[in-house]
């Protein structure tokens, strides 16, 4: 039998593998406990209008910003972090302009910062960023179906913050690496 015949036979054999398999333990109690929690979305228009979500808005001076001093870039984070504003919400939401600008700056610098890291650290950072961005994409997709879901919107904001924090940590880490080399 040649390799192609062997591989074709593999596919045929695979189609006879069991597709229904019973778990050794009963999984229902865990599921029953989880679905007993009031997590199913039951948003009504009235509730949606009455509810509020934390949205990232303007507030440029309080957002993460860069300070250029003595030709060395320093990332400074205001302790209060991002500024939030209570706002009623409907089908539209947006990240604040200043947040987007700060994020854009960090994204632009990211490749430079990553190049200074060890291959292992770089791989770790890239993996984490990919996970966070994958989550952002999934949440955005879910928001397409449920644009008024406050929990999803809040989760999106939190996830963006995680991405921002990670990019800031990369900046801080590479500066630390550089200063040690300089010594």
């Amino acid at each position, binding site marked *: 039998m040649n390799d192609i015949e062997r591989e074709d036979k593999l596919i045929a*054999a695979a189609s006879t*593998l069991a597709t229904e398999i019973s778990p050794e*333990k009963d*999984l229902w109690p865990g599921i029953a406990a989880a679905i007993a929690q009031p997590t199913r979305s039951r948003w009504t228009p009235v509730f949606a209008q009455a509810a509020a979500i934390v949205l990232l808005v303007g507030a440029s001076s309080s957002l993460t910003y860069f300070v250029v001093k003595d030709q060395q870039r320093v990332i400074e984070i205001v302790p209060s972090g991002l500024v939030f504003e209570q706002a009623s919400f409907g089908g539209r939401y947006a990240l604040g302009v200043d947040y987007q600008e700060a994020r854009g700056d960090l994204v632009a610098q990211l490749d430079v910062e990553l190049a200074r890291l060890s291959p292992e650290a770089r791989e770790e950072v890239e993996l984490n960023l990919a996970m966070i961005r994958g989550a952002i994409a999934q949440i955005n997709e879910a928001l397409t179906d449920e644009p008024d879901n406050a929990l999803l919107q809040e989760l999106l904001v939190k996830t963006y913050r995680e991405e921002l924090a990670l990019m800031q940590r990369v900046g801080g880490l590479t500066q630390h690496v550089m200063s040690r080399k300089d010594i």
Partner: protein
Amino acid sequence: MTDEAAWIAQAQRSDAKAFESLYHLHIGKVYGICLRMTGNVSEAEDCAQEAFIQAWNKLDKFRGESAFSTWLHRIAVNAVLGRMRKAKREQDRIRLATETVVAPASVADTGELRDLSDAVDRLPEGARHVFVLYAVYGYSHDEASNMLGIASGTSKAQLHRARRLLAQQLKQEGFEI
């Protein structure tokens, strides 16, 4: 109206008892695909539970455009992929697999099929996912790639890789399918 259709309608009205009936009807299919894709009992149990919880939360979106089992399959695949993303590295899966029950996915298979099942478990993640969906569950490349969030060409390449690796593995171990 079939029992299943009635249970779906009742569960969509938040009837947990009806949903339990759906669970008993479909747990084998859902757990099966989770086990084939993860190759690990404890991960498959977690994924299957997660899939049913997500299904409950999304039930109002089920319109009957596909079979309920197909809809559940998609949710189960997403649950597996989500869990894989959470595990930082594929090495975590391998480590977990060695710490827990060995060769779990093969328990439902006998004889030479058990050898094949064990070999499938040892495939790299991407190749294993495509092989399981395409060769074991009979999804087309378009369907599999859609479920996995990859290009159809990538699905074909991963299948080619899986076939080659499986053939090598089984040949080395002296097994004949």
